């Protein structure tokens, strides 16, 4: 196996594990934001296991890279990563959305170590990421500020305020991802309010842009590397994704935004993911 193949398989394994843990958390409650958590699993695998400089022992490390999950409902996928990296104990994942939990549906910086910004009202996290980037710039830090927006979220006007702000201020350490799965609660983004060509839009706002397969871990990793190779412009990486990726029963359905995970679905989907994980581990062991 080449080094690149090993990297790919390693990150694919992490992504499968993130999906497995996400599914388990949501099954425990019975309902949750499964579709949009699964669509960013590959990105989070790359961020938490390849690119992001963070320290689980010191979650507030001043020079760490920041991540703002502007589509805050992808909390369960982020929590899976935080548990895998040791920010929180693995058992804590069972507390998702339980009374007084520190793992609420939407990311909360005051409850969960490793969460850099409280999000949940769409369109706001991107602006907070710009504030973080301005503060890091003022302090002379060279860390990256990552954020993730949904495609439905991109219909919010505040997204474009922040995009104009970042382009104007040349926030070159900012690297954004658009989870372009083309679905939102009421249907397809193209039917409801089309984004048309989001990359062209960001480009017009002064950003570097890339369009990649958002489930190709190497493509994600390489795109981040190219973004980090410069500091003149913010980068938007438009990731073409499938909402619900990895659980075929619910894949590519608008209804998977917030859906039930009953015992039957959980049994079938977790068995498949377990096999996938076992197979990847076996390949990597060779």
């Amino acid at each position: 196996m080449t080094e690149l193949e090993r990297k790919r398989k390693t990150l694919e394994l992490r992504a499968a594990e993130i999906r497995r843990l996400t599914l388990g958390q949501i099954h425990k409650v019975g309902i949750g934001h499964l579709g949009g958590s699964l669509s960013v699993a590959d990105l989070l695998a790359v961020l938490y296991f390849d690119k992001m400089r963070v320290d689980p022992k010191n979650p507030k490390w001043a020079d760490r890279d920041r991540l703002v999950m502007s589509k805050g409902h992808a909390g369960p996928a982020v929590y899976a990563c935080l548990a895998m990296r040791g920010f929180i104990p693995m058992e804590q994942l069972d507390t998702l959305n339980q009374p007084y939990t520190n793992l609420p549906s939407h990311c909360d910086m005051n409850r969960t170590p490793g969460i850099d910004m409280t999000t949940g009202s769409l369109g706001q996290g991107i602006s907070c990421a710009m504030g973080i980037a301005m503060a890091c710039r003022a302090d002379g830090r060279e860390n990256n500020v990552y954020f993730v927006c949904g495609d439905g979220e991109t219909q919010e006007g505040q997204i474009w305020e922040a995009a104009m702000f970042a382009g104007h201020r040349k926030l070159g350490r900012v690297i954004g991802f658009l989870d372009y799965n083309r679905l939102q609660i009421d249907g397809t983004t193209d039917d409801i309010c089309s984004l048309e060509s989001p990359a062209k839009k960001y480009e017009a706002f002064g950003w570097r842009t890339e369009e990649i397969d958002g489930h190709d871990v190497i493509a994600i990793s390489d795109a981040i590397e190219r973004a980090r190779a410069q500091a003149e412009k913010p980068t938007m990486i438009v990731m073409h994704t499938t909402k619900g990726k990895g659980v075929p029963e619910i894949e590519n359905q608008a209804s998977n935004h917030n859906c039930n995970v009953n015992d039957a679905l959980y049994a079938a989907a977790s068995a498949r993911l377990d096999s996938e994980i076992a197979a990847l581990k076996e390949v990597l062991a060779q």
Partner: protein
Amino acid sequence: MSFTVQMPITESTTEMRAAFCEAMLSLAEKDERIFLLDADLMGAMGTKPFAKAYPERTIDCGIQEANMIGVAAGLSAEGKIPFAHTFGVFMSRRVCDQIFISCAYAKQNVKLVGSDPGITAALNGGTHMAFEDLGIMRTIPGVTIVEPTDIAMIRDLVPKIAYHPGVVYLRLVRRTCPVVYGDGSTFEIGKANLLRDGKDVTIIAMGYCVSGALKAAEMLAEEGISARVIDMFTLKPIDREAVIKAAAETGAIVTAENHNIIGGLGSAVAEVIAEDAPAALVRVGIDDRFGIVGLRPFLAEEFGLEAKHIAAAARKAIAKKG
């Protein structure tokens, strides 16, 4: 807390915005965490000297209030102390959710400056006349709400606001205000100021109406009515103790505010006395109307915010005592 009251009341020659900018400059000199954000109203707010002195800590976002509040929240998340300014109408109505979620819910340390409260928006008219900002802010958990009465108070309060943890809403007149307090007066956030003692009725005022309340008390004194006057410059948390004491000792309360009587000072005082100290109450303020265009004296007359209106309300409150 140590203040003196200047009588007779005169109009200041210094504008509130100038005093605010000076206080911000002095604060920023001592503390590198201080940032100032605006949404294309630095010229209007008179804060360009700050931008000149601290360009690296000034962020004029352009006309994008929602993004400005998010940027302020992000700065706070990194340990900065951002002051963000726009007109009060925009700071409350336009960015309510950004303040609610990105700032208050997220426990940020963001200072919000909403200028041109109520009738002081004058010729900008109904679209710019914040009669509702206090009501909106008051429903956001944990937000501290302060409206400085004059330049002595803004000078003293700016650093106190900076180091008061959490989200603070500073409701600020841009131009001149009548001088109520002597130079060098100091104040405590959350503690009402007893400006004049009295036993027949208490006028609880804030902002624009404080000087009118003092004048009303003089008018009432000539009629043999003894009116207590309280400056409730911190609307939230309201000084319950001062309200309860006034209700118990004078039995009649008048509230006076440059804001809708729904949601602002009148409501806040009504809540306290209804729960803890029943007393006669008459509210002076905007009677659930939109603003209209006009100069300050015309608007004060039109909306009934002058000393004579406050005095009439006091007589009514005393009559209600029975």
